[in-house]
């Protein structure tokens, strides 16, 4: 399966700081997607980056993709307490890693 694995498993920062999460995957993909899950809630799609793209921005989100290293990063700039959630990367067939638990302290 095309499973994404996120790193770090947990990240704790202060409001206003930037948060960077990394993801690695094992097989070729056509795109990579990042999702957010608030505790006990549903999954929210954040951003999709295609295999022929290297970087993509959406608001405070910046995603990079390095297909040669089979890795991606998600940067959240100027974090807010409301960004506290688990973040997952997904490539190709939708299988998920454990996610990165981000805690943003006000």
């Amino acid at each position, binding site marked *: 399966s095309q499973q994404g694995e996120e790193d770090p498993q947990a990240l704790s920062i202060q409001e206003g700081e930037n948060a960077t999460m990394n993801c690695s995957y094992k097989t070729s*993909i056509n795109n990579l997607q990042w999702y957010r899950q608030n505790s*006990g809630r*549903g999954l929210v*799609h954040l951003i999709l980056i295609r295999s022929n793209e290297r970087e993509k921005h959406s608001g405070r989100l910046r995603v990079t993709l390095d297909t040669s290293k089979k890795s991606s990063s998600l940067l959240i700039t100027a974090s807010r307490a409301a960004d506290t959630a688990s973040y997952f990367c997904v490539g190709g067939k*939708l299988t998920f*890693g454990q996610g990165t638990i981000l805690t943003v302290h006000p």
Partner: protein
Amino acid sequence: EPEVTQTPSHQVTQMGQEVILRCVPISNHLYFYWYRQILGQKVEFLVSFYNNEISEKSEIFDDQFSVERPDGSNFTLKIRSTKLEDSAMYFCASRTDAQDYNEQFFGPGTRLTVL
């Protein structure tokens, strides 16, 4: 904005009972999915469905599970004889087509508790 809906939000059942989890995908979507997430664990793919048949399923999706699109709007997951280990959050998702370039839209989930 169109969204995927799921009912009920929480289902409590006794072990051995049958449960049906319901989903209403986004109306012009053609591909439908079920996932589950056991508390504290990762989201796991169960099954994908297209053109009124299963297109792919995982090892988790054994004979106890079945899916159906009984009408033009609902997409259901049935667990015939629930076990304690079926307790999880079940997410439905839909997509316009199966191309990897398109995102899946997830519903809010149904929390299933098997006692």
